[in-house]
């Protein structure tokens, strides 16, 4: 019997089915579980109340990231509730025997940065975390998706989840990316094309020359924002770029095991002739650096574009959404994006706070300075990224330019700690969400790439990085 051609997604899915119920719901085995302080306390509490244990503590890795201060860490956390949440996680990992990177551990960082960095994330795995940007790990050809707290508890107790298979979508970006255009621009352009609900119910596989040419950092940026297109997971087939990145990482397989694993990983890519429920093809040459104007990641235009006019929208619901967004963002229809001045720059988040992102920022900045009146912060994705950037001289370039160089964490991506926008402040941000209030009450967020954020920091306005590079 010859097997019919399968997609990468189908291969991972079928190798993890423990049991299939009659209606198609599957008990799916979960290989790796990442845990952070915000979405886990109620799950551990549930275990305790039911007298359950963690089934596979060794498949679980915990870190604090959302709540931790990115300034001085020699003192306890000042905000009571944040401190209690961190202390609760510390008590839970002790009680249940889970490996944990605490606030003063060099390996601490954003959960989706540290998993890959440690070699905890590997191709062909199922990976979950109580966080929607778990899609990031799909860059390795792993099926990785965010779950709610009840599911966190379910995975802790059973190492499985109850799920039905998703639909499959392939997005192919043909040809090489033009100069000055990055993975972030590619994914923003994709979300602009499919809309924030376009991927609902799907797992997206990214393919094509422009995707294959990306580094692991770039691939993580793309998969990270799959959820902004409504898809729970994004995938990129593993290849030599992937294997090179993994080799030698602390938790990655070693020696003979590594060779065996690579041989298996090479069988994972989608077979020729496999079919997808939906196919989308874009041309890389059509993509320019992108920037958002509104309060949804789909509200995106090329930097050469203008703020849209709600009057051009026929659907009343959509028109109201645009009007509301323009009002919130303090923007007028027809304004050129490059005429928009900014107050703050945030370089960070699980989308763009890896070493390559910081290199790119330093390259654009060079010997220039942050514009006067602009506050620009850099929050490395992990302690190890921070140390490497310091070693490579990136930190020095950025500090000389006037950037605030901080400790790792989620920081102003969501403003749960003290890093927030003030009402009315406008921010050029390398993060992933421009929702109302996301970066601070009444704060205004423009999403863009690290290179574009660097350009905005230098000029004090949204700027086409290709013009100043």
């Amino acid at each position: 019997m010859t097997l019919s051609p399968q997609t990468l997604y189908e291969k991972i899915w079928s190798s993890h089915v423990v049991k299939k119920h009659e209606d198609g719901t599957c008990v799916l085995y979960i290989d790796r579980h990442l845990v952070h302080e915000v979405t886990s306390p109620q799950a551990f509490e549930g275990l305790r109340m039911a007298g359950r244990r963690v089934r596979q503590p060794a498949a679980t890795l915990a870190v604090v990231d959302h709540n931790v201060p990115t300034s001085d860490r020699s003192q306890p956390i000042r905000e009571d509730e944040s401190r209690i949440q961190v202390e609760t996680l510390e008590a839970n990992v002790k009680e249940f025997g889970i490996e944990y990177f605490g606030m003063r551990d060099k390996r601490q960082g954003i959960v989706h940065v540290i998993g890959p960095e440690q070699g905890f994330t590997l191709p062909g795995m199922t990976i979950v975390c109580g966080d929607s940007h778990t899609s990031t790990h799909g860059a390795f050809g792993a099926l990785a998706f965010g779950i709610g707290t009840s599911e966190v508890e379910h995975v802790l107790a059973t190492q499985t989840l109850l799920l039905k298979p998703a639909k499959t979508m392939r997005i192919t970006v043909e040809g090489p990316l033009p100069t000055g255009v990055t993975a972030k621009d590619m994914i923003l352009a994709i979300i602009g094309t499919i809309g924030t609900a376009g991927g609902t119910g799907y797992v997206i596989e990214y393919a094509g020359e422009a995707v294959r040419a990306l580094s692991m950092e770039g691939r993580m940026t793309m998969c990270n924002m799959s959820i902004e297109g409504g898809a729970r997971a994004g995938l990129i087939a593993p290849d030599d770029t992937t294997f090179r990145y993994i080799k030698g990482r602390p938790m990655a397989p070693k020696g003979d095991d590594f060779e065996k694993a690579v041989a298996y990983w090479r069988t994972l890519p989608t077979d020729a002739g496999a079919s997808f429920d939906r196919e989308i093809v874009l041309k890389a040459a059509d993509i320019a650096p992108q920037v958002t104007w509104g309060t949804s990641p789909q509200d995106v235009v090329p930097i050469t574009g203008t703020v849209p006019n709600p009057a051009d929208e026929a659907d009343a619901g959509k028109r109201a959404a645009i009007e509301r967004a323009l009002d919130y963002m303090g923007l007028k229809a027809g304004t050129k994006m490059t005429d928009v001045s900014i107050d703050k720059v945030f370089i960070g988040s699980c989308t763009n706070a890896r070493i390559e992102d910081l290199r790119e920022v330093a390259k654009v900045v060079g010997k220039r300075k942050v514009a006067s009146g602009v506050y620009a912060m850099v929050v490395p994705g992990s302690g190890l990224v921070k140390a490497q950037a310091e070693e490579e001289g990136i930190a020095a370039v950025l500090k000389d330019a006037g950037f605030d160089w901080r400790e790792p964490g989620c920081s102003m991506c969501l403003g749960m700690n003290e890093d927030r926008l003030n009402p009315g402040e406008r921010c050029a941000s390398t993060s992933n969400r421009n929702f109302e209030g996301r970066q601070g009450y009444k704060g205004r967020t423009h999403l863009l790439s690290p290179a574009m954020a660097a350009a905005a920091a230098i000029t004090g306005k949204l700027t086409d990085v290709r013009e100043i590079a």
Partner: protein
Amino acid sequence: MHPFKILTAVAAPLPMMNVDTDMIIPKQFLRTIKRTGLGKYLFSEMRYEASGAEKPDFVLNKPAYRRAEILIADENFGCGSSREHAPWALNDFGIRCVIAPSFADIFHGNSFKNGMCPVKLPREQVLQLMARATDYPDQPITVDLEAQEVRAGNLVFPFTIDPFRRHCLLNGLDDIGLTLQHEGDITAFETKRKNERPWL
């Protein structure tokens, strides 16, 4: 978990698309270690002034809708962050059912885990229910999970829901307990996996 069978209640109209979980429960309220008590922060930034005073225009502040147990919204409800605090906050406020043309996946799944029933209907039916809830706030809407029907006056809209989810909701079943009935299968899978993929 409370079973969900038939709910007849006031329905509050929220005619917005892409209501995200940051709106439903902003991050400053995620620093809790409990599941309860979030109802007073539900839709906080839309519901209250910075001073803490209620915004009289927001639907859940209007006398007719203060006791709403059903929420009617537009496309892509619950998008964004995976925070289960969103259904917890809705539930704690008293909302057991959201009716919308479409839901974001994670929010949709999270609702079931909390005994809540997200009902998906064609957009034009949702807009009809929205209009009705706006014009006749005192006339309750019925969500009947047994019959898989939404009824409001002479409007009767059938809906479908995944049979497994429906079974769990109707009987108030807890997923973990169900899965642990297959513990033998999980152990067998783990043994097989160890042989096939020893590096894991």
